[in-house]
């Protein structure tokens, strides 16, 4: 028999028992749908993590001051200022793998307009900071070197702050706000950046020149840089090298003897990103393997029904053999039946899985991502299950003895 003919016979046989065929496929449908939906959720989470790390800034290192030692209890990093403005300059000029380095002095303060107020994070920094974070402007301009040198009273607002103070769709560039009773002119509004991987809103912040911050918000110029230094490495390959070189430079500058702890910390955010990604990948694998178990159960269901079907149709098999069916014709027929069941189940399952991934995204706001490879893999795997679990019943059918099969009651 030609393959097409075999398929026709198999489909015909399955359609004679529509309800049973459907119930048999149900296991497969649910299995494949579960795999598709679970992987979509996992992939969606992964894509979200990737995207939020990308928005954090590429090849980012954060250098912070050391810790205080008060009566034997150590404070966190950054509690004791050890970094100096000279350190910053040295990092900028002496390490070739560093592309940008920017100071970030941070404080929480109230920002006031004529009739509104909003407490937010106020940071003093330099224009390089926005390069490191690949953060662009929605309107207006960044402040430049002359504003830094002159300690100009200019401010950049994040989107959330604009929303809170002026409402959406308002461009406040040129207006005045007061921070700690000092009037600042708004020179720009930053583009929306979204959430950090830890769920913090990047856009709930305002930025002023670091010199202005020191003079007006911190109060008085200082030798120490009481904040952190954000470093953008030249590329992702050089990030780790830049980290080591900065550590070496700072230890040297701070005269730290070998064997003594650093009085600063350097965090590599690329590393954190890949750790997080591994986490979501583990989750995807876990979800997918749970779903794969249901696929397996679906396969066993097919095997069960195929065995029942072989027993039930023993006389039919005997007759087919009597009129000229070769063992391999019978083998092919039952194998194709199992394959058709699982393949149809796979296809319907893909439809259902994609639909439920879409529903989940809509209903719970979960990010889901259905990749075409997963569909191909799921359908291919379900076909494999069909062949795997259909083989035994089909072999059993093909090995029947025609006379005994014909006599079977």
């Amino acid at each position, binding site marked *: *028999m*030609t393959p097409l*003919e075999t398929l*026709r*016979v198999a489909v015909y046989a399955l359609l*004679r028992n529509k309800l049973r065929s459907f119930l048999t496929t149900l296991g497969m449908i649910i299995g494949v749908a579960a795999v598709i939906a679970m992987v979509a959720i996992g992939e969606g989470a992964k894509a979200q993590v990737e995207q939020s790390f990308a928005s954090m800034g590429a090849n980012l290192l954060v250098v912070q001051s050391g810790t205080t030692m008060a009566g034997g209890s150590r404070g966190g990093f950054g509690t004791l200022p050890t970094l100096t403005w000279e350190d910053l300059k040295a990092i900028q000029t002496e390490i070739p793998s560093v592309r940008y380095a920017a100071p970030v002095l941070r404080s929480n303060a109230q920002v006031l307009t004529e009739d509104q107020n909003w407490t937010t994070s106020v940071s003093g920094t330099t224009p390089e900071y926005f390069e490191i974070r690949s953060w662009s402007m929605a309107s207006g301009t960044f402040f430049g070197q002359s504003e830094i040198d002159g300690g100009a009273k200019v401010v950049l607002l994040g989107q959330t702050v604009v929303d809170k103070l002026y409402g959406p769709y308002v461009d406040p560039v040129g207006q005045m706000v007061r921070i700690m009773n000092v009037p600042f002119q708004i020179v720009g509004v930053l583009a929306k950046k979204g959430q950090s991987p830890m769920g913090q809103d990047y856009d709930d912040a305002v930025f002023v020149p670091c010199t202005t911050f020191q003079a007006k918000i911190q109060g008085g110029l200082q030798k120490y840089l009481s904040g952190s230094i954000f470093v953008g490495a030249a590329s992702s390959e050089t990030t780790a090298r830049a980290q080591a070189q900065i550590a070496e430079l700072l230890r040297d500058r701070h005269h730290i003897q070998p064997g003594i702890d650093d009085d600063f910390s350097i965090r590599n955010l690329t590393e954190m990103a890949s750790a997080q990604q591994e986490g979501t990948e583990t989750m995807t694998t876990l979800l997918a393997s749970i779903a794969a178990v249901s696929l397996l159960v679906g396969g066993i269901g097919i095997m069960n029904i195929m065995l029942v079907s072989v027993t039930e149709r023993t*006389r*039919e098999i*005997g*007759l*087919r*053999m*009597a*009129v*000229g*069916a*070769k*063992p*391999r*014709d019978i083998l092919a027929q039952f194998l194709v039946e199992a394959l058709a069941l699982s393949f149809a189940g796979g296809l319907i399952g893909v439809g259902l899985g994609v639909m439920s991934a879409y529903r989940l995204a809509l209903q719970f706001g979960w990010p889901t991502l259905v990749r075409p490879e997963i569909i191909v893999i799921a359908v291919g795997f379900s076909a494999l299950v069909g062949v795997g679990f259909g083989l035994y019943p089909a072999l059993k059918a093909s090995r029947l003895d*025609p*006379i005994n099969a*014909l006599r079977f009651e």
Partner: protein
Amino acid sequence: MTGNDSFIVLRQVGKIYRMGDVEVTALRDISLGIQEGEFVAVMGASGSGKSTLMNILGCLDRPTAGRYLLAGRDVSQMSRGELAAIRNRMLGFVFQSFNLLARTSAVDNVGLPLQYAGVSYRERHQRAEEALRQVGLADRLHHHPSQMSGGQQQRVAIARALVTKPRLILADEPTGNLDSRTSTEILALLQELWRSGLTVVMVTHELDIAEYASRVVMMKDGCILSDTRRQARVADAAVESATAEAVL
């Protein structure tokens, strides 16, 4: 009497069934030759080995001893696949219990052997229709077995046996499940096939059925008791039924 040139040649054929430690000898030392164009009736008591003999003749089973030559070819050593091909091309089977596929139309039932002969769907349908016309069922093409009488079902089965244009028809008690009037109709059909040149071997319990054959082989305990050639009685369904009605 068993010339090597016969259509069917059995030489010292034996068949022993083994069930655990018990051995049942169903056939012992059977030698038989059947020429092309004979109509052979096989008779004998229940358990005498008639069906066993038919199964071997029909290549459904292999002898445990002896040789079986069909149209000059030794089939006793063939593989399952080769036997299937022989059954498909050379033989047509008619069973006592019809053995039609349920919920399957007459044409599709009749076309079944052609599926395994690699005949296209359209040609299959055409030839099945032709075979059904030959057995007088041109108006029942799309009926399912459950929608037909026993005699009609057996005629569908005969059409199925005919459709591959075999040289040998094997019928194991083809009228066993039918009343006498329908039996005569089936016999008339088998005689018609025989007259057109086919070889027919038929098992029956009833003497008056065996009378329609040109040769009667009597079996007992797995052996051939007697083998007689005779003048076949002409089966005429019309005459038979007319007589039956007259009697009533």
